[in-house]
């Protein structure tokens, strides 16, 4: 049942305020850090305070402003929104710690941290959007706020990456706008609170146009194959940006959008009848396999991770496209699993680049001797991606396989197996080189008085995220943990029909 509460708008507003303060008073390093941390903790507190309610099925709603009857900006913290907000606010905390360590002595840090806070505020805004208008509003603002971060280095190729990024995302934004407006025109309402607001008798051609526009619109950011071009190029951004944005915030917003379209705009029954999701599922499967194969060939560490992100995202799209409760659970839970695992990897790659200056797979032979803890975390994350039990990745693959069988699309299970092998194909060589290859030339030894391999601020988030990967893997059935929120979300999506596990 809906409870009117200000917290869904306070969460995005907190980091918006923090961005304002950072821009205003950013010159002094202390105040900048103080405000960023304060905002991170308050946001975490707000989201966690709403968690018990969500688990009990309470939905916090807040209508902010009404343009004309039926069209306005409103916030709604339903289970799925809460799940995504929880993931992104926890990761924002860790990434801030990491960014402070990583950006030491870099230039324009005021601009960096200001826009960084803005991006997260829009991500949480997307999570809590009650209707498509608010969703689109935060979706496009995210594009604008990430542009300065992508071109942060101000080098010619950074500008080129920024331009490509904007072209892709703005054209995508255009399609999303057209789709959203058509939904508003055709369905009369924009709300995302119902398990589906479009009706079958609107005629398949219109529905087809709406579905394609929305999927292209959100698919650009979800990195579905033909639209993924910007992601590898955007890796030129500093690592904290790649970590949080291109592994968590920006791409997940796209995947979140696709799932919202499937579950809340069209609804499971209508799509089952129309069958639009079948081609989408095939496209997702193709993306998984194709991007994994490309990842094999990438020597640059961050680009390899980028292609792995593209393939992992399509897991979520595939799960949603299968239209069965189990697959839906897998899709939602994978949002968290992939986030924590991928962010650990990016942190590790960033730490390696920061301490030893090595950026390529071929250059990191025997690094485990020099940076044991980081490489251990990297291995855990790699295991999670391959889907080894006890790690988060395993749960997704397990439920995804069950979902595929439930949707009697057995060949998807084959795709999962192939992709697991491919994941192993491009992650294990890294682990192998790190541990079992002798170092080509001796690694720069620890400066005296330094007990850990890299700066504490870099190491601490790596360890925490790796722990999370394991925690998520183990605590699937424990109530109160992310998995249970996913189940509450799936209940709301499949309120109409289908069995819930």
């Amino acid at each position, binding site marked *: 049942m809906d409870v009117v509460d200000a917290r869904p708008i306070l969460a995005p507003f907190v980091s918006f305020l923090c961005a304002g303060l950072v821009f205003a008073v950013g010159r002094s390093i202390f105040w900048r850090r103080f405000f960023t941390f304060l905002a991170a903790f308050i946001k975490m507190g707000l989201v966690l305070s709403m968690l018990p309610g969500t688990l009990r099925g309470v939905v916090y709603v807040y209508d902010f402003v*009404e*343009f*004309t009857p039926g*069209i306005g900006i409103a916030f709604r913290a339903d289970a799925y929104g809460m799940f995504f907000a929880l993931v992104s606010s926890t990761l924002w905390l860790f990434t801030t710690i990491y960014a402070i360590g990583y950006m030491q002595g870099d230039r324009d840090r005021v601009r960096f941290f200001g826009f960084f806070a803005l991006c997260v505020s829009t991500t949480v805004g997307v999570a809590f959007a009650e209707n498509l208008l608010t969703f689109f509003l935060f*979706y496009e*603002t995210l594009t604008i706020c990430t542009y300065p971060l992508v071109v942060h280095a101000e080098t010619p190729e950074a500008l080129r990456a920024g331009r490509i990024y904007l072209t892709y995302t703005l*054209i995508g934004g255009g399609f999303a706008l057209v789709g959203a*407006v*058509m939904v508003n*025109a055709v369905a009369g309402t924009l709300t995302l609170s119902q398990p589906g607001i479009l009706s079958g008798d609107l005629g398949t051609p219109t529905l087809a146009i709406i579905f394609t526009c929305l999927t292209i619109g959100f698919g650009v950011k979800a990195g579905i194959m033909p639209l993924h071009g910007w992601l590898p190029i955007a890796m030129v951004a500093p690592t904290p940006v790649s970590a949080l944005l291109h592994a968590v915030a920006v791409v997940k917003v796209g995947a979140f959008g696709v799932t919202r379209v499937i579950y809340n705009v069209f609804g499971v029954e209508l799509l089952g009848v129309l069958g639009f999701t079948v081609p989408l599922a095939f496209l997702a499967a193709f993306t998984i396999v194709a991007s994994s194969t490309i990842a094999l060939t990438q020597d640059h560490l961050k680009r390899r991770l980028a292609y792995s992100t593209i393939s992992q995202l399509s897991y979520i799209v595939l799960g949603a496209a299968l239209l069965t409760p189990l697959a839906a659970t897998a899709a939602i839970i994978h949002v968290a699993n992939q986030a924590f695992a991928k962010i650990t990897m990016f942190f590790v790659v960033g730490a390696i680049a920061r301490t030893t200056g090595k950026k390529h797979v071929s250059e990191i032979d025997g690094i485990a001797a020099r940076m044991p803890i980081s490489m251990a975390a990297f291995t855990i994350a790699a295991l999670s991606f391959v889907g080894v039990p006890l790690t988060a990745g395993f749960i997704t693959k397990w439920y995804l396989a069950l979902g595929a069988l439930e949707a009697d699309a057995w060949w998807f299970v084959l795709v999962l197996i192939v992709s697991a092998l491919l994941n192993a194909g491009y992650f294990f060589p890294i682990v192998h080189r790190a541990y079992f290859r002798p170092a080509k030339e001796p690694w720069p030894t620890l400066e005296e008085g330094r007990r850990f391999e890299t700066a504490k601020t870099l190491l601490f988030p790596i360890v925490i995220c790796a722990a999370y990967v394991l925690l998520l893997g183990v605590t699937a059935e424990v109530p109160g943990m992310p998995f249970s929120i996913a189940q509450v979300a799936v209940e709301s999506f499949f309120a109409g029909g289908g069995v819930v596990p």
Partner: protein
Amino acid sequence: MNAGWAEALPWTIVLPMVGAVLTPAVAARRPRLAGTWAWGVLLVASALASGLVYQLATTGPFSYDVGGWAQPYGIELRFDHFSAWVLPLLLLFVVIVPFSWRYLDHVMPDERRPAFYALLLLNAGGMIGFCVTGDFFNLFVFTEVVSLSSYALVAVGGRGLAAFAALKYLFIGAVSSLLMLFATAQLFALTGSLNMADVAGRLADVGGGPAVMVAFAAYAVSFMVKTAMFPVHVWLPDAHAIAPSPVSAVLSGMVVKIGIIGMLRVYQVFFAADVLELGAFNQTLVWFGAISIVMGAFFAIFQDDIKLMLAYSTISNIGYIVLGLGLASPYAVIGASVHVFNHALIKATLFLAAGAIIHQTGLRTLSDLRGIARRMPQTSAAMAVGAVSIVGLPPTAGFVCKWYIALGAFESGQAPFGFALVFGALFIFIYYVRMLNAFYFQEPVHDVVIEANEAPWSMRAPVIVLATLCLVLGVLGGIPLSFVEPAVLELLPFWGN
């Protein structure tokens, strides 16, 4: 006999006029006093205007008979929801005038300031009168006041080139005013009255002959020229680019809207009389609107001079509004009418910010102004906010209207125009990305840019206020929308849906 604030209606028009006439007298001794005098007059006028809007909000549209003569015999001033545009118009003037105090230092010698501020006040008064009058011939007279002051304001800045651009503007503007006068005379010959409401009544029993059609066509063409729509937009880019920045902000933001408000007035009359079948005309409006969007954006991309590019983007945004009007569906017209205000606000931000940069560095082209953001952070930030909002990206004011016009397009079944609307505008963002890159992410080339310091406070404050308004209205866009809605719904039954 008139409700509370209605008494102030004629005085709101007359006040800027009398202020303008007195400016040379007041500032005879100290020319720089003219700026403060003009600002004072505009402040008082906007106070009156807010009283009028308050009256409109409480008791609905009201009218005022000048000279005490009953409705069709004297001149009637009618204040309805569309004329509520007077208040934001005056508030924009109140923000622009302080900007011009310091800006005029490099534009004209001091002794010509009183004449400049007189022209600015006359322009404001003329536009207020235009939005408020309920009499066709009075409409013509106010158009002349506005146009004549605009021709002069364009030529005030530069030397021969500005005069040539102003003269081109004058010739096309005069021809369009003549067409308006011809249409007024035609309607007078057909109905024997000049009062809009009365003409609507009498036109109904005159029936829809070719003469009525020609009268409407003459009005339509005249307003299309005034609002620089696609086929007749040639005069706008040079005129708005050469004019001093505060003048360009006034011209692009408000004077160009005269055509739109005129078209709405003419719609009201011809549809109350219900004598014309308007499907074909709406369709041409939609086509011209769409072409204006794409064409304006397309030309804007190739300009290197900031102000010339902003002038072309005005054509593109006018295309928005005309497309909205042509679609004739409730949401589209609401979006178009509110975009009249939003575009004025955004364009004022952009022109004033560009003006501040030109004032500080003397450079106008993008390639020269590389790396300006380091030295002029606040002005460049305002420029960035303006750039994002002119394309209509979400957090800003431009987005809400774009959503409504697109909604109207899809609701009235003209989907291709919805697509044209959304993607046509993205063209222009290519230029803005180039601009933002040049400002923020490239090293300065000229040393004048390297040591440029932030604009003086009297120029920076208006720019910052306008930029914050652009952002705030993106979220609180509801206020103007819900304000205009009753007027549009009252107008729409005549559009046959």
